[in-house]
């Protein structure tokens, strides 16, 4: 299945950081999401995004993961030359990541 079948996303920015929350529709799928979605998986999927380093914060009670992607905004909103300087379109680009269910 695709990540879009399991979760929704919201994208924000802080300086040169793109922050993407991935939130489950059904909290029962937390173990699956936590097992399958890592900074490395995102880095591979967004291979044209310059990520220096990333962190993943786990929120089991909310059924969510919060990703902090450093370097993603080419110097930050105020200096960036990108058409989408805030990186607001990035979260939606994660939703076609394939999530293979635990068998």
């Amino acid at each position, binding site marked *: 299945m695709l990540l879009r079948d399991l979760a929704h996303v919201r994208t924000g920015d802080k300086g040169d950081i793109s922050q993407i929350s991935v939130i489950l529709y059904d909290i029962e799928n937390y173990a699956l999401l936590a097992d399958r979605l890592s900074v490395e998986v995102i880095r591979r999927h967004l291979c044209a995004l310059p990520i220096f380093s990333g962190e993943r914060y786990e929120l089991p009670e909310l059924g969510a993961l919060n990703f902090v992607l450093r370097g993603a905004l080419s110097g*930050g909103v105020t200096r960036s030359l990108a058409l989408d300087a805030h990186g607001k379109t990035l979260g939606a680009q994660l939703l076609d990541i394939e999530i293979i269910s635990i068998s």
Partner: protein
Amino acid sequence: MTGRTIRIGAGAGYSGDRIEPAVELAEQGKLDYLVFECLAERTIALAQARRRADPEQGFDLLLDERMRAVLPACRANGVRIVTNMGAANPASAARAIVRIARELGMAGLKVAAVIGDDVLDQIREQPRSLSEHDGTTADLGDSVVSANAYLGMAPIVEALAGGADVVVTGRVGDPALFLGPLAYEFGWSADDWDILGRGTVIGHLLECAGQLTGGYFADPGVKDVPDLARLGFPLAEVSPDGSALLTKVPGSGGRLSVACCKEQLLYEILDPGAYLQADVVADFRTVRFEMAGPDRVRVTGGSGRARPDMLKVSIGYQDGFIGEGQISYAGLGAVARGRLALDIVRDRLAITGIDAEDLQYELIGLDAVDRTGRTGIEPREVRARAVGRSRSAYAAGRIGAEVEALYTNGPSGGGGAVASVRQVLAVTSVLLPRDRVAPAVLYEVA
């Protein structure tokens, strides 16, 4: 739930936000407070430039329009207003609000200005290390145009205790615009970290206004939101223990659901266990949401730890110019012609020796915002975009000029060319010891 509740609404989530939803809240929200958050990172630096041109300016450009729209209902219903629309000049904003109030026949309306966030002089006297970059503020030299500390709730509490009907600030932490009224009403102590953490949860949920009630959420067929053209802005009915019921005016557009609330709780949060604010380090990990009826969500939980000793200061500085040009191609071979167009611009800037950095060439419709590096079905149209930065406005302008020249010198069928140059006002930040910042409250009465 014991004790009385306070109803606090979000009237704006950014400087250009819609005005009617705030009027709807003031008229029908049965509010005690209406808060307008109107200061993005860069807004204050832009406002500072206006203040230099005219010492009575430098506050939010929509202040007049917003106040004329909401003051009548706020006055009639006893709704007090808190806003950061003071931007680079809260004192002048307070005088402007008083002038409007007089014109509207609201004698006695009391307006408080919170000042003291402007720390440009302190930063110039004693340079500070940059938080996100190497070097200090001294390295930025004369390019620094603004330095504003993120104040906490204390001066807002003071202004409300002083009887202000309207409190207008410059830079304060966005959640503090909400935490101030709540702490004032409930007598929350400035060192009750858990309750301040919960109040910060409420402030953070509300600060982007429509982003809690279904804005920035819809994905047709997957996450549908009704009537976004009439999106209702949120309000919280807050209890003294820092829990709240989140809702919006019945009949307004949008949707308030647990999913919306979770998205907004985590919006622009780095470590959800340590959300740094001037008043508290809030912990969002134990926040819980549950539906309490249609478009009604109950929020409980959250906690806090002792506030940081240092305040964040946002520094605005001039950083050269960005030049850009765009031109469209359509039909068979549109992608190939778009790529040819970009190759020509690249060669032209090299041949003519234009001194520009970070030049980027992309095709909107193909790879301008997509970062997966994947290509699908070739689009029927693309828009070629060239962009770069330069110390020189002339050199930056040449980028767009070379794109426009493609009309007669480039591939066949190029249309809709535009060119632009803009001065870059960049933002960085430093930390400043709390005792170097001295907020104060001034009053004006209509």
